[in-house]
């Protein structure tokens, strides 16, 4: 049976995923449409939306890093993180 702490952690992870994935969805999606379609409306709207979403994603990452920096437990957990492609020992 899941504890209240597990449920709270999952809820926090869901919120974090939503905050990061939503602007990333806009960036990836509009970029794909921009690549596939060559009309003036797509060029104008998609490029503006990509810029907006990139700013939003940047702000979300900044808030996340500030939060992580204030927590000893999260900073310790970061020692487990390796850049993509790098082997764990």
């Amino acid at each position, binding site marked *: 049976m899941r504890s209240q702490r597990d449920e709270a952690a999952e809820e926090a992870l869901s919120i974090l995923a939503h905050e990061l994935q939503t602007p990333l969805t806009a960036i990836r999606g509009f970029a794909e449409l921009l690549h596939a379609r060559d009309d003036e409306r797509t060029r104008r709207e998609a490029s503006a*939306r990509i810029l907006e979403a990139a700013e939003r994603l940047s702000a979300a990452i900044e808030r996340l890093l500030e939060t992580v920096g204030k927590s000893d437990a999260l900073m310790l957990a970061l020692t487990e993180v390796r850049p993509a492609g790098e082997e764990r020992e």
Partner: protein
Amino acid sequence: MSLLRVLIVDDDEAVRSLLRMTLPSDDYEIAEARDGREALERLEADAPDLILLDWRMPGLGGSSVLDAVKVQHPRLPVIVLTSEIQEHHRALAESLGVDAFLTKPFSPLELLGTIERLLAERPLDEPS
């Protein structure tokens, strides 16, 4: 040939905008809802041919909307779009009868392919 009606349900304006642009206006007529309650109102007012449904929304969430839609219109195709990564969300959506479950960030062109496939497969007497 009449336009196919798609109801977009998402609380995020940027995602709704992406979905609007994904669907060619020559083929699709778009209705939008910003939350679950509005989605159920639009369902009756607009009689959509397909629903694109966000899962995590304030108030009435995607699971409640999916449940209500499938009770009232079991054969109306619903595609869930979500940032949830835990498997139990997908399992719940499948138990409620979802037709496709895509995680964000999704490919809009792949989504368009899924929409076209579901609309081509739907029974001729839809909308119910």
